């Protein structure tokens, strides 16, 4: 039963989506569309990070764009100013993401709800200010040009759009894969227990700080690595990448797709990216549409696309189940003990149903 309601997370669905993504460059009208798609994938990876701390763990991190910027600048500075190779710089971006995540998390996660959101908003702003003002390191408002592209392997040349597209796609798949593992695991359940209630989680023996910091650091590593890829594809960055608009963009992607769901980040990112592309004039004033969209979503559709779909399937299944139950009264003991002890085959898909809900109204 759980298998049905996890249509979005089922390996078969994921493989179909992957197939579509692999085929995309061949059906795309031009290179530009492939480039747009690659950029959307980069953002989606960062949104996966946001999903872990905000969607699963319930802490609204408003510095997420700042960590993206840290990753982007790490790659930019190391390759352009210090002559590092892209891959080494990319790895360092992840290390910086983890390091800064650890430091910021250790302070900010002691704060609850509003305090945490406001604090991280300020952290995001400090990061932006430093990028803008610390000219010796970041070149200030001029930004950094001549960022090294990812080094190719043999005939694969990542300065060309298609190979880069597949590189980013590979990274996105890794992000989805790890998120899926996490979501299905006891760790994912731990994060969600914290989202429901700090008190409940602690009463179950969960160490709040350790787990929140873990979720936070995982999310900042995602963001920083995505930022690193961004530098590799755009190859020019300025302090504007640290503007908190980018954090808000990512929140919009996450909400549209479905907060706390496995496929929500990629669905939301792709939909909004292509909608924005479809209405070119929207780019600059996209917030006239996004702003009210965010408001309408949280009021009327807080689960987003993936979340609403899953809730609908879950409800339909539950109704079917109840009518089944009433059909054969009383439920036999043998039947229940079978469901209570999950076999190896169902354990892969069973827990995802748990993990991929949007915010319940509890």
């Amino acid at each position: 039963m759980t298998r049905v309601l996890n249509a979005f997370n089922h390996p078969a669905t994921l493989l179909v989506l992957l197939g579509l993504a692999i085929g995309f460059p061949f059906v795309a009208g031009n290179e530009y569309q492939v480039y747009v798609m690659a950029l959307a994938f980069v953002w989606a990876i960062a949104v996966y990070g946001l999903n872990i701390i905000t969607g699963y763990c319930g802490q609204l991190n408003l510095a997420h764009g700042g960590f993206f910027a840290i990753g982007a600048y790490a790659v930019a500075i190391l390759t352009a100013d210090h002559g590092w190779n892209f891959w080494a710089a990319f790895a360092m971006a992840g290390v910086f993401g983890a390091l800064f995540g650890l430091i910021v998390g250790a302070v900010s996660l002691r704060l609850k709800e509003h305090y945490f959101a406001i604090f991280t908003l300020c952290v995001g702003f400090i990061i932006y200010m430093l990028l803008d003002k610390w000219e010796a390191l970041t070149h200030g408002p001029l930004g950094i040009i001549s960022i090294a592209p990812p080094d190719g392997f043999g005939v694969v040349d990542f300065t060309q759009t298609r190979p880069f597209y597949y590189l980013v796609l590979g990274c996105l798949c890794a992000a989805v894969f790890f998120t899926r593992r996490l979501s299905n695991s006891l760790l994912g359940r731990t994060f969600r227990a914290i989202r429901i209630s700090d008190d409940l989680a602690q009463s179950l023996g969960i160490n709040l700080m350790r787990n929140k910091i873990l979720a936070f650091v995982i999310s900042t590593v995602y963001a920083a690595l995505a930022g690193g890829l961004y530098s590799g594809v755009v190859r020019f960055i300025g302090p504007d990448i640290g503007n908190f608009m980018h954090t808000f963009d990512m929140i919009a992607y996450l909400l549209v797709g479905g907060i706390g769901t496995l496929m929500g980040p990629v669905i939301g990112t792709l939909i909004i990216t292509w909608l924005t592309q479809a209405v070119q004039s929207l780019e600059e004033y996209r917030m006239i549409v996004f702003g009210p969209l965010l408001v309408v979503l949280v009021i009327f559709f807080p689960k987003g696309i993936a979340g609403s779909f899953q809730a609908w399937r879950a409800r339909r299944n539950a109704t079917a189940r109840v009518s089944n139950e009433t059909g054969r009264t009383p439920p036999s003991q043998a039947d229940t003990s079978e469901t209570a002890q999950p076999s190896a085959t169902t354990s892969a898909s069973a827990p995802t149903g748990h993990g991929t809900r949007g915010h319940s109204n509890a």
Partner: protein
Amino acid sequence: MLEINGLTKQYGGLTAVDNVTTSFERGAINAIIGPNGAGKTTFFNLVAGAARPTAGEIRFEGNDIAGMAPDAIARAGIARTFQTTMLFEESSVLDNLIIGHRLRTGSRLWDVLLHTPRHRRAEAACRDKAAEVLDFVGLSAIGDRMIADTSQEERKRIAFALALATEPKIVLLDEPAGGVNPGETDGLVALIHKMVKHDITVCLIEHKMDMIMSIADRIVVLDHGAKIADGPPNEIRNDPAVIEAYLGAEHAEA
């Protein structure tokens, strides 16, 4: 097994729990009663570590646990339920219980990402435990049901199950029969007796006097944060201080 000595909690100038000394015996059903605002829930919070005592000690199996973090206290073997338990509304009953046993397992981030045997064992242990406690509280039949579709009484049982999944030596139940009708209350009483039979000490806060008087082995009465009586039900029933406290409270409210 739980000895409390001079336990005090002050918020600003307000004393919520005032120098309470008592002890709870292994294998007994202990009840804490008192008028509204007597400090019962604060008392639980202190024992469970959700609030830090201003003074006093809490000895659990000989060790002072006062001021320890709630998660450490849970690992030491004290579980609690809340007046209202928040659960994942849209996932199944069984699914909600799996996390309850995590504290007894050890698996780290790398185990999760690499799907090591250790993590698989931990998962299996949690699932088995979830099924076991679900069976214990008599809800095996609805393990697949969405939480949103469960009744108030079923939720109470699920909350018990979640607490039991942590393998506690003592459980603190905050209004276990609150919002549940009299017929269902009997079922919950039977479940509480079953816990005791399985060597789990029970400590509960309840407003339903009939229920308390029938199941408690021992009752501690709090009023304005201070202990005013402590003893078996028939003693408490006739204690003038207790009658005074309850009547006084009623007069004040009227």
